[in-house]
């Protein structure tokens, strides 16, 4: 009997040992899952994350904001309008096809037709094929951010996506609301292959055996992605061990994850500036820079960071987060109630006035709470705020209609560069060019002029000076109320080494994740 038990125990040990020594599985709980398998159908964080797992870009961002060669091994600037990329050889797609220059061009041309991406690709003429492993990227004007944009150039398998599917539809169709081949099938060069994809329920990926990057230390063989929408449930799923990694940890749970012996909390500045814009077209007082300054001086953004964001984000004074070309370190946070009151008096509004304010309640971290706190702070300088918060599905319509005197907006630069903030948030609104699309009323021709000039300045030092000048003007003008840069907060089990693979763009490179 004893022997039998012993034998069984040995067998059990052997089994459990092989189980741990074998394939490594990663279970991730994310707040949202990719809406499609087509990397070009929607420009959103979730889709770009998927693109980095299943496809590869020419170059990608590293954690410290540099470029890392991916499908392009090296590159050189030929002239002001042209950069040459030398492509990696011996790269296979998931379908087995070999990756060459024609795939880069094909993918770029398809992306140029996508509603979501074509705006970003405005500065580009196109891609010229020099030979099978060399391409030239050509721009319409000298363009400093060409490499930044090359992080969006993911290669799709041109042969795989050519032809018609079983419904007679072209396989390269890129449509949002109907079934297309590319929405449900993929062939990229990426580290993971999609094994099954059930939208909103589960995505299962397997490591691609022929992946080109043999130097990667990553050891995830199977990657299961589960969307878990409710914050409390996502945190509980990690604490209970049902998933290994979660994203978007809410600030109130930071302490809990840090104190738990089995989990780690990792945060990184996400570079998303949270602001309130003041609409001078709706409220005459907001046309006056002194009043706008008074508002900025009245709002204790450092206090909001400490109390509402639990001190884990950096207090903002400008659009550009530290590390960006336009970041000006000399700009200091402003909070001074007396000065705010003095400014109001000086501008002739000692008795204050009444305004409306709107903010979303499920778009940014603690967005509604930030708005409530701000409303109370403004009351102290006599500005009576009628606040309305609503879900983002309704908020964007209101924002487009500029329906309130102060509106909240957060922004993350598409190019990891300061210019993008100004183009969307503070340039005078121009329907034809699309500049200032998310600007509620501030307008300063000097800012416009500098922003446009910076776009085609290739001398990076000169360019940085221009961007810094913009930040200084916006600061003096109090063009908006800065709060903080939102961060990305991940929770992970201790043996999942998540820290090296996250970055400010929020593309966790799970292909390089090491499980100990």
């Amino acid at each position, binding site marked *: 009997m004893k022997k039998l038990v012993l034998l069984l125990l040995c067998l059990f040990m052997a089994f459990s040992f092989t189980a741990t020594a074998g394939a490594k599985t990663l279970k991730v*709980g994310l707040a949202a899952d990719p*809406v*499609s398998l087509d990397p070009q159908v*929607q*420009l*959103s964080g979730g889709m770009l994350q998927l693109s980095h797992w299943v496809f590869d870009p020419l170059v990608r961002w590293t954690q410290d904001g540099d470029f890392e060669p991916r499908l392009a091994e090296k590159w050189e600037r030929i002239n002001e309008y042209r950069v040459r990329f030398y492509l990696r050889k011996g790269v296979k797609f998931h379908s087995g096809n070999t990756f060459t220059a024609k795939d880069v061009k094909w993918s770029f041309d398809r992306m140029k037709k996508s*509603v*979501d991406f074509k*705006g*970003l690709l405005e500065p580009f003429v196109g891609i010229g094929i020099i030979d099978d492993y060399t391409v030239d990227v050509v721009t319409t004007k000298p363009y400093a951010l060409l490499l930044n944009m090359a992080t969006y150039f993911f290669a799709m398998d041109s042969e795989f996506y050519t032809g018609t599917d079983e419904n007679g539809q072209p396989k390269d169709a890129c449509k*949002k*609301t*109907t*079934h297309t081949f590319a*929405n449900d099938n993929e062939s990229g060069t990426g580290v993971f292959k999609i094994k099954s994809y059930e*939208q*909103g*329920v589960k995505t299962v990926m397997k490591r691609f055996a022929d992946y080109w990057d043999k130097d990667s230390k990553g050891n995830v063989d199977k990657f299961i992605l*589960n*969307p*878990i*929408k*409710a914050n*409390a*449930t*996502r945190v*509980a*799923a990690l*604490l*209970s*061990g*049902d998933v290994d990694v979660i994203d978007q940890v809410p600030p109130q749970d930071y302490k809990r994850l840090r104190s738990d012996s089995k989990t780690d909390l990792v945060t990184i500045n996400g570079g998303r500036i949270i602001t309130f814009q003041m609409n001078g077209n709706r409220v005459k007082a907001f046309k006056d820079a002194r009043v706008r300054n008074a508002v900025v001086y009245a709002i204790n953004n450092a206090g909001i960071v400490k109390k509402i964001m639990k001190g884990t984000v950096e207090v903002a004074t400008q659009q550009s987060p530290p590390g960006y070309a336009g970041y000006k370190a000399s700009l200091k946070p402003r909070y001074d109630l007396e000065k705010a009151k003095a400014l109001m008096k000086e501008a002739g509004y000692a008795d204050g006035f009444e305004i409306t304010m709107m903010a979303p309640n*499920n778009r940014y971290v603690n967005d509604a709470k930030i708005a409530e706190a701000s409303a109370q702070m403004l009351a102290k300088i006599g500005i009576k705020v009628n606040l309305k918060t609503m*879900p*983002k*599905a*309704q908020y*964007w*319509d209101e924002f*487009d209609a500029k329906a309130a005197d102060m509106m909240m907006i957060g922004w993350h630069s*598409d190019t990891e560069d300061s210019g993008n903030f100004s183009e*969307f948030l503070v340039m005078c609104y121009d*329907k034809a060019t*699309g500049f200032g*699309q*998310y600007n509620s009323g501030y307008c300063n021709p000097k800012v416009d002029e500098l922003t446009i000039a910076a776009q085609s300045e290739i001398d990076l030092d000169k360019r940085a000076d221009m961007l810094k000048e913009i930040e200084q003007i916006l600061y003096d003008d109090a063009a908006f109320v800065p709060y903080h840069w939102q961060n990305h907060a991940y929770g992970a089990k201790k043996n999942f080494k998540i820290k090296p693979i996250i970055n400010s763009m929020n593309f966790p490179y799970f292909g390089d994740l090491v499980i100990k």
Partner: protein
Amino acid sequence: MFAFIIRRVIQAILVMLVISLVGFSIKSNIGDPVRDLVGERVTPEERAQMAEKLGLNDPFFVQYTRFLKNALHGDLGTSFIYRKPALEVIFRHAPATIELVLGAALIIALFSFPLGVYSALYPRSLLSRFTMGFSTLGVSIPVFLTAIMFIYLFAVTLHILPSYGRGETIDLFGNGYWQTGLLTIDGLKHLLLPCVSLASIMMPLFIRLIRSEMMEVLETEYIKYAWAKGLSTRRIWLVHAFKNTLLPVVTVFGVQIGIMFAFTILTETVFQWQGMGFMFLDAIQRADISLLIAYLVVVASVFVVVNTVVDIMYSFINPTVRIAGTK
């Protein structure tokens, strides 16, 4: 009789029309579905073009008649976020909710009958007092709180039950429609906490209902007569009293199960349970209006059909209803 049925069917159709009309009139308040489909960088002009292509800019009655025309062909529109016919999306999500509600109903039945009967028979015993106290507590705690407490106790602290989702599921008919969690150990484990949470809102109600019904029955003349006749205690309690308690309770139980489908929205959200309630909330938050309207119509039709069948059956059982209906 025939006239009565025809009348009921016409009424049912009218109700469905009204509900779809209500669904249509609220849809403009939910938000712009195009916003969820595009990135933040897409210009307003392009969004307007998309809305035009999706037919969202057409006048109300053009949209509504188009919807009705398609509905007659069994097409309730296409879900924007799932890129599939809305009906298909709903049917794929229905099994998860049905399994959840059935599980909760089973738990309610298993516990509320013995507890209710016991506390009616021995109202002064410790267990009865405890049950009554507990059921008051149960009624007053909202389901999401119960659910979160369960998750923290059983999943986070004790590590004995999973915290979210449906676990391992099996494709019941091989066509992907009915993914069941009832046939795997893992699936059943995942079912336990959501079912208990969902049951927790209805259970106290039933315990109290059964208790009071039973107490009432125990006071009736025929029970007193049965005592006087010298029947065994067991026979009086189980056959005479309990059986008569059952009648109203079963009627209420049937109705409440229907209502329970509505309560799954909270439970499903907390447990990331991929059922109809979860889908409904998601559709609201992402302004997937075609899915939303299809869902309203489907749910309404279920209620309408059930009620109509009940009414028709009732007219067979109780002719006075029929007479009232024909006058």
